[in-house]
């Protein structure tokens, strides 16, 4: 059943399959109808399922998310698209004060099975507002599940899992991976929400990454291997809930860790991972947990973004720093 498709196609297929499987699934947002979305993730859905199931809305993100809340309250499973990461901010109040809290507010009487898809992060030469790594805002907000696939197969599986979930999910889709083609088994067991995975075994140190940083981490591990250092790579995949078991077991097995993420480092998901790993693996650590993240700056213009984003070299430098002399 394996096929070579892009992450964009995998996501499109996931929506298609979900719309087929469940008549309560709805897809809407800006330009997701006839155009098929600016990234073509919803390509062909209006044609196939009709205007009622996949439709354009007026241009207003708070409106989109707020209406999704109402639809979810009343029997539907909305999947909404925020056109780009930074254009989800107008919906922030709806996300934080309602999407994340309505179940809790009603002691479980109202569940909100809705998915907010966010094409996110950088590395595409995009202009300002089109490259934000906004995961920390969502991950810090209790009540949301926050997922970030790093490949087409997970993208398919996580989107299906997100739509099936009775809780709201923010699905962060790494834009720069949309067009990378991979072998994908769409019949593979859907990875459960909350499960990290070891992408590459290794014994000397552990790279912990998610979303767009996973391929970079894997590349770094490849280079390191050529230099005789064995780096393990863990793909977090599910930021919330977090898979402490897998991540901590991995770090304990090597005793050294570097967390890699594109977002500004301060008060970030990378900070969380570094803090938990430092606390939970304290006696196994031979060196402090290092972070390789974006700088604490607004997303830079395209010509400078390569200096900002975690690179193979910067990751390897951080690994070099892990006090090998003490080992």
């Amino acid at each position, binding site marked *: 059943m394996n096929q070579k498709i892009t992450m964009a196609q995998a996501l499109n297929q996931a929506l298609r399959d979900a719309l087929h499987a469940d008549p309560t699934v709805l897809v809407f947002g800006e330009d997701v109808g006839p155009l098929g979305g600016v990234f073509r993730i919803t390509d062909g859905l209006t044609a196939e399922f009709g205007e009622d199931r996949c439709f354009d809305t007026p241009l*207003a993100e*708070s409106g989109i998310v*707020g209406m999704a809340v109402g639809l979810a309250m009343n029997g*539907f499973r909305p999947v909404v698209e925020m056109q780009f990461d930074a254009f989800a901010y*107008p919906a922030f*109040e709806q996300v934080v004060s309602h999407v994340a809290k309505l*179940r809790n507010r009603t*002691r*479980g009487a*109202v569940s909100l099975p809705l998915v907010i898809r966010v094409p996110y992060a950088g590395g595409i030469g995009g202009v300002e507002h089109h490259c934000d790594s906004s995961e920390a805002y969502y991950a810090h907000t209790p009540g949301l599940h926050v997922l970030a696939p790093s490949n087409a197969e997970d993208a398919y599986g996580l989107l299906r899992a997100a739509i099936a979930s009775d809780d709201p999910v923010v699905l962060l889709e790494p834009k720069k991976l949309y067009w990378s083609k991979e072998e994908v088994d769409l019949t593979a067991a859907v990875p459960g929400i909350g499960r990290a995975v070891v992408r590459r075994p290794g014994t000397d140190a552990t790279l912990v990454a998610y979303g767009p940083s996973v391929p970079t981490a894997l590349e770094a591990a490849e280079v390191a291997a050529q230099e005789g250092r064995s780096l393990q790579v863990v793909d977090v995949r599910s930021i919330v809930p977090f898979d402490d078991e897998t991540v901590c077991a991995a770090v304990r097995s090597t005793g050294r860790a570097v967390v890699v993420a594109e977002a500004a480092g301060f008060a970030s998901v990378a900070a969380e991972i570094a803090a938990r790993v430092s606390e939970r693996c304290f006696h196994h650590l031979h060196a402090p947990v290092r972070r390789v993240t974006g700088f604490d700056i607004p997303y830079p213009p395209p010509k400078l973004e390569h200096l900002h984003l975690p690179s193979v070299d910067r990751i390897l430098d951080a690994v070099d720093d892990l006090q090998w002399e003490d080992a």
Partner: protein
Amino acid sequence: MTAAIDALLPGEPVVLIDADGARTPDDAHELPAADSLVQAYRSLVTARRINDQAYALVRQGRLAVYPSSHGQEACQVAAAQVLGEDDWLFPTYRDTVAAVLRGVDPVGVLVLLKGDWHSGYDPYEHKVAPQATPLATQLLHAVGVAHAAQLRGEPAVVMALCGDGATSEGDFHEALNFAAVFGAPVVFFVQNNQYAISVPLARQSVAPSLAHKGIGYGIPGRRVDGNDVAALLSVLGAAVQRARDGEGPQLVEAHTYRMQAHTNADDATRYRADDEVAAWERRDPVRRIETYLRGAGLLDDATAAAFAAEAEQVAAQVRDGLNTDVTPRPDDLFDHVYARRTPQLDEQAALLADELAAEQAGE
């Protein structure tokens, strides 16, 4: 697709029974049927009693705070009365009474203000959404609920409430526009009580009226005397019927007044004059319809006394319900964040359980 301007323009506020309880010469609108008016009066008596009771409970320290709808009860009553069982009500923090009149247990509505839990009732039981605190946000949920009904071909209508202040929020704009574009069966009902806490209407808007805001969305606007329950039943009832008939949303602005402070924590003397309050006192919505009904021979002392007794019973129910102290379960902290607890919440719940066990052991 776009509406002609004439159909959108709000006329002058509809008044069917004036402040002295007399039928006005308005003959564009029929007076609601007598039994409907009597029913409204009956609800008004209960509404007023609930407001007074809750207010008293605050003074006694049984409730932390109460945003009273004293003075706005005609709006509360009409909003509930024009809805059918399958319709939805979206209330704000000030709309306790409307929720109760729709059938929600008053104690359930008030636990929020007692500190027990955020929302004390099941929104599906009487199709009453949780009372909204972040202003205007609920209007979008209302559109979604209405659109869901529409997609399923159900005839349900959604009554979405907000205040004059809330009309300034971006979500108000987005909600009206979404409703208009999708033709969603929503009645947006603005209780213009002249103030947003201390901020007077003039600082909120310089439009001819708040109902004029509908025009920019292609939504007809209507204005109505918010202390005249007959006019409210007529205008809101027509708006609900229109939405049910598939003709889309409507915006209704009621002119009314918040007789008490914003909540008991507020000091209204800082921003409004006594004579302004006194002028509105003379337009009291309960007295007005009572005068009319008695004059029309539709209400006698015995019935009035029966209604008062009924209201007294509800008040007693409120008192009793709020006098029993409920201690919320600590596990409630963790059990409803998600459908299932995350491993992290399991850990945190265990930590708290350990602490509580140690505390008990220590005592």
